[in-house]
């Protein structure tokens, strides 16, 4: 009874942010910044509370529960409802989303206060939180849906919010439209993935006649493997779009154009993990077709290594983190591809902690840089105010003394990400590596290389940003951020450090917890050798980074020491392997040329010509026909009379 009451709270997780965004939308102008931030954070916080209550309910009653809210679409045999699926998988996602989301909301109240002033548009403060709450709503819809269509609504909703928030400063960026272009790129690339998901959903409905998860999984067990393979591969296309995997990852680095809380929440912690969640949710389908699983695993592993190599050559503090995110998402996708769903979800949660932490801390660094730049800009010409890029790591250095809290939390996040025991990243990544070692040794080597690079580029970042001498006036003047920013950072840092406790080897609390929804997944046993190897690799990466960047102090604004030793390889990495250019040449240019051909020759030439020709033909024909309508009554009478004569003739000769 009590449980049912708790379960029936599920819709409130979505409705509370809806109220928050409506309140801000309608009354936001009068509430002021404090009120807006309070309402937005409170809405998300209450949603987190609901998630916690649902988790408590589930801990007593681990079976999946469906909470219907209202009828949605009833067409023929299709009967879709707004129904929320409360099981351990969705609640895990809800907890991660709302928990991290709440912290980022709090952080954003402080960060956006500065940011909107820095960008010169304080009025957009409300807009930001409306979008933010809308994102939470869409994300919760995505993870709590009981059917694929509702999931798709959330899927598209988060895509929309991503677009809106990437282009939040739509009039900024290169040539004044750089950010808008980045937003458009994210949207278009996501559409390609969404197209795959849509096809998958259509196929599901076409073949199984339903979109409810349970119904589909029950029916799919008896379906032809080829069909399931097609469906899962199309679904994978959707995953590569949303979770930034090869080959559709290109939008995520550009998405860093959004404000830093956006990068943290959407493009690191929650939205991009939707693909991983989708595969985990659809695991009954994937388990049926090993070929699909292998494809997923390969895509994930390749992405992990590929993105990691690029991250090594980046100077933008957020770009490094962005490629790191892609890489870590590759880890997760590889995990779920190998059937290690618990490992994937585990890494998803810990990654949410430390990557959000890293982004937010990077935001704190950026804010400090901006603050320092404003300080140092006194006396300079106003035109030069923005000549310095506050996100370029080459402008930083030695910040550990001036921004102590940020430094320590950043260090915690970086070590967690690098996989240093006993921080959370170590456990989750180790579990993936163990699964790979057991199932697919080739992937194990790829992932191990990625883990090495991860440690290396994180070390590189730490040394470039926080150690050495300040390489710009702004860095010298940088200031620590206010508590509203640092407190969430500390909380996240704590979580990053102890997050591994969620699924300690041997205890497998998360594994047992997820058995309620992923009962068929095997528990990955801890392999000591693999753990030691991964730890050694991570330490080696850090050491190498110290060798290159920490030992000799990096000169002011100099070229990267790595570039000297690696040469052309570094140029390739710095230019992201020219993937964007490749896409431009292979896909975009022919596409544009084809469009041009279709537009000018086919559409304007043939189709317009046909239509215009028809029109002018009709007009000239009408012009001839018009002569019949000469307005002379006697002509009309004669015409009628001719008809009479004809009818009489017919009657006569009949």
């Amino acid at each position, binding site marked *: 009874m009590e449980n049912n009451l708790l379960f029936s709270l599920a819709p409130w997780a979505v409705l509370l942010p809806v109220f928050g965004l409506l309140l801000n939308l309608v009354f936001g102008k009068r509430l002021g910044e404090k009120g807006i931030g309070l309402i937005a954070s409170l809405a998300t916080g209450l949603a987190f509370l609901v998630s916690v209550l649902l988790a408590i309910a589930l801990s007593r009653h681990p079976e999946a529960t469906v909470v219907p809210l209202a009828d949605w679409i009833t067409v023929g045999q299709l009967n879709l409802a707004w129904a929320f699926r409360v099981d351990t998988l969705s609640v895990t996602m809800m907890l991660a989303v709302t928990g991290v989301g709440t912290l980022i909301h709090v952080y954003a109240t402080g960060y956006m206060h500065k940011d909107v002033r820095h960008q010169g548009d304080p009025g957009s403060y409300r807009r930001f939180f409306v979008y933010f709450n809308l994102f939470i709503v869409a994300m919760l819809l995505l993870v709590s849906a009981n059917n694929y269509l509702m999931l798709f609504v959330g899927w598209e909703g988060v895509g929309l919010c991503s677009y809106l928030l990437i282009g939040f400063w739509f009039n900024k960026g290169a040539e004044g439209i750089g950010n808008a272009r980045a937003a458009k790129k994210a949207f278009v690339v996501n559409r390609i993935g969404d197209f795959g998901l849509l096809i998958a959903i259509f196929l599901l409905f076409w073949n199984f006649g339903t979109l409810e998860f349970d119904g589909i999984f029950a029916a799919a067990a008896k379906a032809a493997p080829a069909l399931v393979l097609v469906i899962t591969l199309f679904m994978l296309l959707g995953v590569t779009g949303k979770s930034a995997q090869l080959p559709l990852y290109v939008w995520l680095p550009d998405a860093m154009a959004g404000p830093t809380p956006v990068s943290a929440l959407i493009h690191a912690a929650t939205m991009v993990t939707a693909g991983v969640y989708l595969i985990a949710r659809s695991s009954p389908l994937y388990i049926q077709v090993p070929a699909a699983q292998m494809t997923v695993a390969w895509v994930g592993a390749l992405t992990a290594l590929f993105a990691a190599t690029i991250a090594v050559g980046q100077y933008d503090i957020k770009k490094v983190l962005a490629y790191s995110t892609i890489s870590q998402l590759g880890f997760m996708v590889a995990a779920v591809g190998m059937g290690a769903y618990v490992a994937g979800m585990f890494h998803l949660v810990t990654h949410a902690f430390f990557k959000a932490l890293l982004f937010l801390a990077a935001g704190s660094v950026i804010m400090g840089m901006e603050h320092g730049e404003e300080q140092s800009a006194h006396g300079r010409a106003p035109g030069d105010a923005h000549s310095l890029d506050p996100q370029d790591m080459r402008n930083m250095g030695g910040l550990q003394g001036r921004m102590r809290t940020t430094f320590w939390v950043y260090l915690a996040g970086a070590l967690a990400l690098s996989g240093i025991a006993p921080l959370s990243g170590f456990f989750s990544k180790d579990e993936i590596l163990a699964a790979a070692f057991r199932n697919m040794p080739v992937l194990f080597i790829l992932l191990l290389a990625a883990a090495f690079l991860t440690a290396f580029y994180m070390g590189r970042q730490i040394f470039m940003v926080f150690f050495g001498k300040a390489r710009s006036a702004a860095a010298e003047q940088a200031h620590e951020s206010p508590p509203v920013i640092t407190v969430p950072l500390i909380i996240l840092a704590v979580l990053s450090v102890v997050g591994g406790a969620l699924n300690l080897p041997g205890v497998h609390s998360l594994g047992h917890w997820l058995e309620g929804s992923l009962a068929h997944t095997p528990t990955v046993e801890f392999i000591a050798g693999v753990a030691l190897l991964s730890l050694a690799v991570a330490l080696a990466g850090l050491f190498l980074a110290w060798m290159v960047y920490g030992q000799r102090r990096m000169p002011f604004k100099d070229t990267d020491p790595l570039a000297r030793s690696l040469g052309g390889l570094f140029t390739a990495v710095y230019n992201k392997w020219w993937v964007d250019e490749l896409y431009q040449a292979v896909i975009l240019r022919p596409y544009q040329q084809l469009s041009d051909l279709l537009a000018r020759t086919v559409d304007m030439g043939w189709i317009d010509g046909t239509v215009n020709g028809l029109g002018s033909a009709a007009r000239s024909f009408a012009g001839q026909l018009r002569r019949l309508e000469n307005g*002379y009554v006697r002509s009309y009478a*004669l015409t009628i*009379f*001719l008809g009479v*004569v004809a009818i*009489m003739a017919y009657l006569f000769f009949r």
Partner: protein
Amino acid sequence: MLITYLIFGVFGLVVAASALGMLLSRNAVYSALFLVLNFATVAVLYLILGAPFIALVQITVYAGSIMVLFLFVIMLLGAEKMPPGEPLRGHRWLAIVFGLVFLAELVLFLIYRGGMQAVVNAPSLEFGSPAAVGMMLFQKYTLPFEVTGFILVVATVGAILFTRGEGFKSRKRTLGITSGDKAE
């Protein structure tokens, strides 16, 4: 009976000649007069056919009212003669040719489909009397009769509205109803 044939022949000739006269007269007044003659002779044919009531109504209504109205309008408008000229070239010939075709068709119909031996019986005296017509009119055809009356009223109102024209408009103008005045 020879005399009946004679009467029919004479009046039939008059009917045909007067119809053609109406068609061919250059002067509209002559046309109208020929038509009056036509109607009057047709009325005589009605008498032969045993329809005295219809015959006299024909004279009263057609000759006495309708054609008087026509004549009145012709004289009122001074529209006896039209200026010469035929704007629709070819129309005249087309009309004449097809008119002849039509006539030929009807005549052929008459020859091939008509029964020449079918003879009109001598109608009894009471056949078309006002009493008989009236009885039928008010018993069997009450509704059409009423409808006809309604049509007449509507036509009367319509005709009055049409022709009061100027006075009606000027009264409207003094009341300031017309939109044209407001536009000024």
